[in-house]
Each structure stands twice: as C-alpha cells, then as structure tokens.
C-alpha cells in the first residue's frame, strides 16, 4: 500500500507558516501579540514557524511531485504530514486559542474569591484546549486522509518528552520524591490490583479478563495491559476492553483532577503526587499535570516520578498475575499453557523508562548544569552583582530587629561580603525574608542578593522549551486518538469494575496526599 497522498495540504501549511514567520519577524503582528499578551513568545514563533515552514514546504513538494512507491521511504515520509497537522494545531492553540480564552475569561471577571477566573478554575490552558481540539477534530470533523498515518506519531513525542524530563531532576529532588513515590505507589498499585482481582472473582468475570484489567487499572494503563496479557492468556477483546476502560476513566480524570486540585488549593508537589498515583495512563498523567500548571513543569516533574515508579512495579505485577492465573485456572481443573514470565517482562518492559533513568544519570554528571541545580537554577556567586551602599544602609538600619544568632551572623556576613557566600548562607537569608521580621525594602534587598547568587542554566532552559512542545504535540495528538468508538469498547463489567476501583484509588490517594504530603521536598 502507498501511504503518501498527493494532497497540497502540507505545502499549504508550510506556506502559511512561512507567511506567519514573515509577518511576526517584520513586526506586522505586534499589536495582536500585545493584545493577546504573547509578545514574550515572539522569538519562539519566529524560530518554529521558519523551521517547520521550510520542512512542510519541502515535504509538501515531495508529496505532490515525488514518485511514490510502496516501501519504507513512502511509509515513514508520509507521517510528516500528520506530524505537521498536529504541530500546526498545537501552535494555533498555544499562541492564539489559549491566550484568547484567558483574555476573554479575565474580561468576564473573577468567579471565585481570590481572583479566580473561569479559565483558572477549569484549567482551560493550551494542554486542555489542545486535547479538546484534537477530540473535536477526530469525532466531529474527521482527520483528513493525508494526515491519518502521521497522527500516530503523538505517542513518540510523549515518550521522547518523558525521557528528556530526566535531565531536569537533581539528585536531591529525585531521592526525596523517589522515597515518597515508592511508598504511595507501592500501596496503591498493589491495593488496586488486588481489589480488581477480588471483585472480578466475586462477579465471576473470566480470570484472563480480571488479570489484564487489574494490571491496566493498577499499574500504568495501556502498557501494563499489553505486558500482562500473555501471562493471563488474555484475548484481544479483553485487552481492548481494558484499554477502553483506562481511556474512559483517564479522560474523565484528566479534566477533573486539575479542577479539584485548584479547588482544594493543592500545591505542585501534592497535585503531582496525586495525579501520578490516581490517573491510570502515562499520557493522561502528563496531560493533567500540565493542565494544572501550564506555565511551568514543577508539577509535571513530580507526577512523572510517580508515574515512572508505577511502571517500575510492572515486573512485580506481571509475576504476581502469572502465579495468580495458574493457581486460579488449576483450581477449577483447567490446564494452563506455560508462559516464560521472565521473557515476557524482558520483552514488554517499556524501554523509555530506562531512557529517563539514563538521561537523569547523564544530567547528574553536571554536563547540562551543575549537579546541585534545582529546576535549572544553581548557586554561583562568582558573577553576583554586589550590593550597593544604599542597600547596605537599609539592612544595617534594621539589623537590630533580628533575634536569632544564626540570622544575625548571616546578615553581618552579607554586609561584609556584599553577596551571598554559600548555599547555606543564602538559605539563612531566605529564612529572614520568610520570617517577615524585616521591612519590605529590606526583604527586597535580600531577595536581590539571592537572585544575584543564583544562575539559570541555558541548557536546562532549552530542555524546558523542548519539553513544552513535545508534550503539546503529544497531547494534542492524543486528543485525536480519543474516539467515541474506542470509548464504547470499554462497556459492561470491565467498565464497572475498572471505574469503581479507579475511583476508589483516586479518592483515597487524594485523602492520603492531602493529609501526608508536604508541599516542600
């Protein structure tokens, strides 16, 4: 089969992108960008529209005039069209729809105390809007034929994003989050797998169905269902039921979790821990985390650690299900075909999780930013701007307000050296600011000294930009794969059992997170 369609669509996308590059670069859209408050994104608009405009024009010309024969080149080259389709949609959503909705929402005014607007409350940002736009396109308008093949690139974008996320963690963060996630995930994964198996037995669904459903609900959605299928000898429709259930439940969670998170006043760590524990599918965890915090990736970082910890439980669950299935079947006198469980684990374990760990190990060597960095910021006072005479006088005038010896010493050291001298020194100075003892002006001087001592890694900032677009691309494409027919596949007992256990897990994990997870790590 020849996959390439002789359609001018990709060429048109390319020409539109180049025209957009010309308009933004020439300043013709400055008023519009100012109105939408997106002037800050101008360099990104210029760069991306030029690069992908050229790629689209080249691909579009190839599609129209190239000789197309069945084979590898035709198959893989044809996916560029779908990739460009998703990317163009993601650009429209991120640069126009998202700021447009935010502007409209602000004009309507706050709907909740604390200046909470409609778009804040419902998390209407580029991630949610991209997923919804994708869902509308696939279910209402239909994906055009020329884009069909490439739309399936979205999961590749998400996996690449998760691997690159490994570059953003510092060892300290990972150790702290890792401990927390192993405890929480261990409890909820094992608990929900056990609960599905127990309810499945009571409702007399086939063991293979209960087994594959328990892995899907307990571990990590689609990957776990596929990985556990051979050991419980699940049939294709049972895998499809599980995937349908995970999908339906995940879509609801993806939209509902951020709203609940905002309403309960959860912080980044708490929400990340909850989403990573309570939502079933990796892509939907990322979607919910970015919907909760679209202007940063702190929540995503926490959520992905929980998500990856959950995937690391996969071998244990596959082994458990293998033993459970053989016992259940033999107890009713059926013979079971032996499956090589070790081989199944080796073959089905998601390699991208190891990629994340490898990327973290690489980053820990300090090649992208000093190893002690947090979210790309690291202590380096060699380039610090020294405090000026006026700042010093402000601090001297208020030094008598301090009661604690360590804070007095830290302030004196700052007055002598005119800059923060170490991480500990800076931490004590931050403590003074947080205690609220000094005046606003004095606190502003201390904050300036803090900012001057911390540098932002340009490499880490570049990784953040890549991640933003990889996840925007992946999640907009994910929306295009949420079809009504796929959701209907859930139906019946699997949806009832999966939905019930998923809800129990989400509610209990919310309670546990609110009670026991502190916002600082």
């Amino acid at each position: 089969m020849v996959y390439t369609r002789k359609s001018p669509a990709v060429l048109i996308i390319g020409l539109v992108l180049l025209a957009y590059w010309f308009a933004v670069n020439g300043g013709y859209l400055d008023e519009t960008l100012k109105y939408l408050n997106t002037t800050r994104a101008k360099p990104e608009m210029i760069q991306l529209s030029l690069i992908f405009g050229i790629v689209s024009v080249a691909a579009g010309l190839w599609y129209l005039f190239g000789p197309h024969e069945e084979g590898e080149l035709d198959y893989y080259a044809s996916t560029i069209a779908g990739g460009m389709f998703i990317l163009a949609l993601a650009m429209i959503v991120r640069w126009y729809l998202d700021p447009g909705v935010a502007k409209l929402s602000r004009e309507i005014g706050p709907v909740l105390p604390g200046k909470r607007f409609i778009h804040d409350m419902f998390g209407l940002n580029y991630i949610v809007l991209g997923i919804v736009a994708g869902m509308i396109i696939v279910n209402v308008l239909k994906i055009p034929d020329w884009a069909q093949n490439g739309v399936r690139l979205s999961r590749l974008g998400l996996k690449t994003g998760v691997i690159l996320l490994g570059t953003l963690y510092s060892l300290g963060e990972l150790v702290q989050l890792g401990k927390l996630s192993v405890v929480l995930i261990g409890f909820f994964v094992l608990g929900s797998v056990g609960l599905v198996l127990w309810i499945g037995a009571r409702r007399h669904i086939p063991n293979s169905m209960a087994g594959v459903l328990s892995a899907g609900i307990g571990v990590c959605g689609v990957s776990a269902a596929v990985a556990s299928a051979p050991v419980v000898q699940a049939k294709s429709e049972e895998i499809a039921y599980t995937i349908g259930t995970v999908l339906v439940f995940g879509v609801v969670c993806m939209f509902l979790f951020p709203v609940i998170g905002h309403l309960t006043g959860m912080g980044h760590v708490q929400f990340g821990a909850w989403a990573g524990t309570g939502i079933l599918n990796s892509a939907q965890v990322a979607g919910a985390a970015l919907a909760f915090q679209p202007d940063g990736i702190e929540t995503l970082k926490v959520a992905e650690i929980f998500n990856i910890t959950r995937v690391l439980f996969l071998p244990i669950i596959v082994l458990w299900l293998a033993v459970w299935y053989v016992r259940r079947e033999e107890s009713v006198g059926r013979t079971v075909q032996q499956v090589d469980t070790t081989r199944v684990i080796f073959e089905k374990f998601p390699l991208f999780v190891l990629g994340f760990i490898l990327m973290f190990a690489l980053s820990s060597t300090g090649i992208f930013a000093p190893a002690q960095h947090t979210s790309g910021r690291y202590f380096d006072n060699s380039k610090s701007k020294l405090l000026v005479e006026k700042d010093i006088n402000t601090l001297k005038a208020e030094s008598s307000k301090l009661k604690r010896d360590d804070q007095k010493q830290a302030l004196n050291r700052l007055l002598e050296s005119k800059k923060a001298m170490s991480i500990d020194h800076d931490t004590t100075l931050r403590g003074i600011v947080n205690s609220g003892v000094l005046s606003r002006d004095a606190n502003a001087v201390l904050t300036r000294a803090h900012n001057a001592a911390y540098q932002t890694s340009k490499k880490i900032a570049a990784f953040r930009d890549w991640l933003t677009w990889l996840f925007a691309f992946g999640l907009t494409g994910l929306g295009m794969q949420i079809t009504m027919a796929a959701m209907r596949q859930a139906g019946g007992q699997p949806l009832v059992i999966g939905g019930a256990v998923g809800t129990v897990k989400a509610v209990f994990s919310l309670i546990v997170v609110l009670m026991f997870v502190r916002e600082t790590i």
Partner: protein
Amino acid sequence: MTDPKSQNIDVHATETGFKYHRGSALSIFKSDRHEDIMALIFAATIAFGVYFFIN
C-alpha cells in the same frame, strides 16, 4: 481486531475508514519496543544538540 483469539490489537482500524497495515492504532511502529528505541534516539539527538549548541 480481526482474530478474536489474537493479542494483536488495532482499536481504530476500521473506525475512521483508514486501514493501517503496519504498526497499531496508536503508533506507526510495529511494536512498543521499536517506538521506545526511536524515542531514545530522538531524545539523545536533542540532548546532544542542546549540549553542543546551547551555551
């Protein structure tokens, strides 16, 4: 989903009227392992690009 006894799934195959002969409904690659390897290659390429070109 052509053979109900098979574990090969293609949940969207007939629904959109577009039939894939390779990969699955969610991926252009013939297996998750292939997709993971491609993601690793892309991630490594981006990481080395950032390492060498951003300063």
